[in-house]
């Protein structure tokens, strides 16, 4: 392949010289970016009132769980997966199916009623996602690079079709209504703020587990797999097992996000689990930075702010807001790839 000729911007040359102000900025840029993003986000949200802030934080937290879990796969292990929306959906549907109560059922439908509490249904959802991930991962471990992306593309489409057409379980396009809110020891998380706190709690848990994973020897092997799978195998690591393990862990985390969002919305339908969501997730991970847990949190926040913030731009005609957001997101991705493929605070490139 052709030698990469790296153009050097005047800005870069200026900042590269020690003693310039730029050097100091560059040194701490990750910290500064983090600070700036959070400050701007806070200012913006507070200016819009607390209700909006709660909603944004809620959405960001869900996306952050997904992004952190996906980052384990994309950033650390180097597997660009678009299939994550499937696990997100499995978690959501598991919780939905298991917690619905016949009394709340609005259309007499095909599903059986289990009427479980949320906190019992969520682990089952994780388990289901884990088992499916194990099976799918076995197939996926045969592929690499471009073909891997293609196959996960296909899996996302298949997952959507299953949600849409497997009527006896998912009720297809009707969706599932009246999904129960979590309750523990008689305390029901039914308010928006309470639910946000619950989601944040789960987010903290997911981040903590992810941190444990990536800071162990296991995490280092994952990065070695990302860099050169063939080489790490020669040193006695069965890469397939490592990939499968992280794949399953990541899928279970995505299922947590799914369960939470199902319960938060109290209604799910297959429209929420389309390929585009997976694309958004990959964008968040890249936006934040590969192999950076903080990056994924920031990425989710920035992404949600961008998508929701666009609702406040007056000069975009209302009818075009939805498509306009997509267009702007697309341009953002391109700019990101051109100027900063390692994301906001990341260090690694794809």
């Amino acid at each position, binding site marked *: 392949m052709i*030698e990469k*000729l*790296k153009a*050097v911007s005047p800005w*870069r*040359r200026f900042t590269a010289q020690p003693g310039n102000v730029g050097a100091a900025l560059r040194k701490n840029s990750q910290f500064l970016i983090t600070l700036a993003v959070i400050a701007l986000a806070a200012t913006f949200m507070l200016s819009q009132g607390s209700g909006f802030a709660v909603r944004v934080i809620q959405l960001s937290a869900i996306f952050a769980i997904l992004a952190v879990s996906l980052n384990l796969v994309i950033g650390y292990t180097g597997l660009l997966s678009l299939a994550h929306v499937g696990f997100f959906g499995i978690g959501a549907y598991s919780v939905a199916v298991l917690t619905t109560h016949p009394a709340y059922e609005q259309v007499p439908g095909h599903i059986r009623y289990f009427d479980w509490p949320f906190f019992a249904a969520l682990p089952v959802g994780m388990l289901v996602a884990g088992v499916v991930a194990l099976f799918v991962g076995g197939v996926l471990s045969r592929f690499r690079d471009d073909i891997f992306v293609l196959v996960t593309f296909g899996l996302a489409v298949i997952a959507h079709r299953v949600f849409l057409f497997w009527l006896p379980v998912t009720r297809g396009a009707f969706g599932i209504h009246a999904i129960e809110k979590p309750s523990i020891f008689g305390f029901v998380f039914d308010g928006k703020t309470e639910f946000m706190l619950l989601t944040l709690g789960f987010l903290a848990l997911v981040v903590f587990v992810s941190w444990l994973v990536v800071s162990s020897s296991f995490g280092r092997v994952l990065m070695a797999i990302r860099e050169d799978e063939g080489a790490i195998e020669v040193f006695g690591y069965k890469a397939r097992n490592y990939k499968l393990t992280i794949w399953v862990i990541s899928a279970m985390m995505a299922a947590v996000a799914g369960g939470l969002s199902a319960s938060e919305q109290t209604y799910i339908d297959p429209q929420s689990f389309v390929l585009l969501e997976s694309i958004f997730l990959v964008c968040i991970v890249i936006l934040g930075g590969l192999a950076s847990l903080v990056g994924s949190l920031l990425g989710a926040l920035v992404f949600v702010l961008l998508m929701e913030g666009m609702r406040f731009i007056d000069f975009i005609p209302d009818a075009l807001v939805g498509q306009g957001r997509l267009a702007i997101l697309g341009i953002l991705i391109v700019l990101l790839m051109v100027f900063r493929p390692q994301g906001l605070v990341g260090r690694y490139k794809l």
Partner: protein
Amino acid sequence: MLLELKDVAVHYGGVKALDGVSLGLDSGEIVALMGPNGAGKSTVLKAIFGLAPLDSGRVFWRQEPIDVLPHQVVSLGIAFVPQGRRVFTQLTIEENLEMGCLYLRDKAEKRRRMDEVMELFPILHEKRKDSARAMSGGEQQMLAVGRGLMAKPTALLLDEPTLGLAPKIVTEMFEKIAEINATRDTAIFVVEHNIRSVLDIAARVYVLDKGRIVHDGTPASIRETDVLTQVFLGRME
């Protein structure tokens, strides 16, 4: 001078690859360029072909600055055989050779050149309909050199033509280089790490270190001074 670099400097992402390099190649001579890894040898060749962006300095061909695009350099009469036996594996050997003078319209001339090259490297004639993928490393290197010769160059630039080749092939390769120089009146600029063999055939030698020319002279002068020891042994990478 046939080909001349004057004060050429090249940056690669903040790192100086070449820092004011001036060197020249006269018609009909063999000139060797030596230096440790990362000294910038390959960059010199790439700079000639416009494949490395020049920060300053210019490259002159027959006293005129080269201001054509990289792909047009070959039609000036400069052919470049890059490092690492890079042949087109999707193409047959004949097609590979044809690539060497794609700009040429005259089919008879093409045919004639191909025959000449195949005469020089008989193995290419033997396998001419085969895919280049199926060749051994030595054969691929010969194909790469043959492809360069298809342009009927006045100056031939060789980047590490013997890297990773077996001793027998190395010897053969140096013989061919000398033969090309002698019979086809081609000036040859060769980057080589095989010090002993290259000093036997080269008329002049440049030694490059850290992007600068540190020595310039005949093989004899190199043997006399300790510049090579200094460059190669004097510093740990």
